[in-house]
């Protein structure tokens, strides 16, 4: 019974914790411009994150070592350091976007300007990182994030022509008013949003935080293979909701309020309130995860003590990194930069940085020295290799597409 409860809780938090500001914004933008014609990218991206999260979780459970620990071991200090700088820059950008997302959610709920909320949100996030237990952060925000199911309810309430939605989803080409350039650009952005590198840093370090052993592999797999795809369904529901409400009237999403609009149309004020709660939980939870990921990657490269399983004084350098990153995130947002723009760039740069994270994981998951009998099987390697090719293509295409399409305009 206790075991069943643990598995259920893990799956539920995996669903609720799957969506972050990048998924919210990118899926809503894509739905409002391309309908469901890019839904296949979400499906491909979710399977990809499942494959690599399982691998990195398995490496963490078997070897007790998290991702960045192994990046340096496999790539050497020099290439490892270049990898660290690039990954950290992207994760910091994502962290900034998440703090901005929390502030925007609070602005929508209170009508108090987002810039006034930024310092409050930043301090609250830091306090959680400083004081709250790791498992509590995961459970509270994961469960609260389930509020985003309201998007699926909204889609159902809007009573769509399911045949038409399916027709859009099964014809992967841009609608009449868009071209292949912007279509490909948003395909890369959606892929980056689904496979954001911080997710595997966080997932593998979280496994070490919670002292996973090989007995926990089954629980970990159920979280990944049940929780993540269901979380991906929420992404699709967000895209479907803007497809139904905003695409027909030609409104393009460029604020968080517009992301929530279809829910308000379908379910009224109560629905809107639930959606805002979901936004808050998803962005706050992801802010904690990305903030920790910055600390994890830096500490693991240098071999510093890290993690929330020890007292802050015992991981002083790690906690200093968390503090400085939060200050940096707040400072960037206070320049009055638009958090939605920060989000859009963060998912594209995530796509650029993908191979840096995924290549070393694939290598280590094949190393019998670390993994013993738990090395990758044929299926994991087959999928891993296919995804490595996809990730390389997305990474190389991202910046040229951004320049050609003027960031999707």
């Amino acid at each position, binding site marked *: 019974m206790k075991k069943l409860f643990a598995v259920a809780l893990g799956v539920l938090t995996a669903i609720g914790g799957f969506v972050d500001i990048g998924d919210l914004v990118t899926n809503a933008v894509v739905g409002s411009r391309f309908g469901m014609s890019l839904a296949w990218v979400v499906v491909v991206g979710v399977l990809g994150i499942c494959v690599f999260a399982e691998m990195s979780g398995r490496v963490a459970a078997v070897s*007790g*070592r998290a991702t960045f620990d192994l990046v*340096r071991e496999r790539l050497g200090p020099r290439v490892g350091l270049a990898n660290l700088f690039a990954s950290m820059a992207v994760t910091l950008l994502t962290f900034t976007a998440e703090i901005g997302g929390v502030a925007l959610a609070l602005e929508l709920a209170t009508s108090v300007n987002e810039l006034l909320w930024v310092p409050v949100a930043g301090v609250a996030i830091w306090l959680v990182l400083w004081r709250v237990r790791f498992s509590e952060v995961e459970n509270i925000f994961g469960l609260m994030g389930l509020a985003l199911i309201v998007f699926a309810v909204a889609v159902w309430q809007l009573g769509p022509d399911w045949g038409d939605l399916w027709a859009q989803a099964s014809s992967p080409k841009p609608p009449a008013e868009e071209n292949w350039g912007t279509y490909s650009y948003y395909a890369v952005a959606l892929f980056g949003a689904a496979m954001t590198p911080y997710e595997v840093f966080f997932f593998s370090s979280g496994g070490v935080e919670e002292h996973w052993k090989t007995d926990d592999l089954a629980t970990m797999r159920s979280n990944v293979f049940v929780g993540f795809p269901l979380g991906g369904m929420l992404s699709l529901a967000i895209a479907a909701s803007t497809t139904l409400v905003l695409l027909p009237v030609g409104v393009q999403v460029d604020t968080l309020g517009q992301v929530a609009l279809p829910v308000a149309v379908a379910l009224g004020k109560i629905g809107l309130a639930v959606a805002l709660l979901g936004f808050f939980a998803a962005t706050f939870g992801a802010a904690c995860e990305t903030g920790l990921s910055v600390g994890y990657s830096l500490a693991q490269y240098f*071999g510093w003590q890290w993690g929330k399983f020890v007292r802050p004084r015992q991981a*002083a350098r790690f906690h200093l990194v968390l503090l400085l990153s939060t200050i940096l995130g707040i400072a960037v947002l206070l320049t009055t930069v638009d958090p939605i723009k920060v989000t859009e760039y963060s998912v594209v740069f995530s796509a650029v940085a993908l191979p840096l994270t995924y290549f070393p994981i694939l290598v280590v998951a094949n190393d019998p020295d670390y993994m013993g009998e738990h090395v990758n099987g044929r299926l994991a390697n087959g999928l891993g290799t296919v995804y490595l090719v996809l990730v390389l293509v997305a990474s190389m295409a991202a910046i040229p597409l951004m320049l050609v399409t003027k960031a999707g305009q």
Partner: protein
Amino acid sequence: MDGTVAGRRYDAALNLLDRQIIDPDGGLVANVDDLELTERDDGRLVVTALLVGPGVLGPRLGGRLGHWTVAVWRRLCAEENPKPGRIDAADISRIDSGVHLAARPDDRGVDGLERWVDEHLIGRIPGATHEPE
């Protein structure tokens, strides 16, 4: 450069370099940034210590960045000719995915920055000593 610890042979570059060093309580100490090799009478090289810190990581990074790393480290150290953190190879108890030590290292060069940050910054924030679980 093969050596024997606890009856098993290890490749120094593959099994030691860049690995996590772990103290007897499971605490994370540092990464192995370099190795101290000593020539034995028969001409073979043996690993006599694990070296840690920017002073030895810098040269392995190479180029201008490596040069600067060492220069900054030298300038920040109090001594005239600072030495990198050193952990004697005799203290290694076990090598698996990490390098496990039999005793907690007491060399200030190993965790000087951690102690400084703890004493001057993190340790002063309320709640810094609260139990994690």
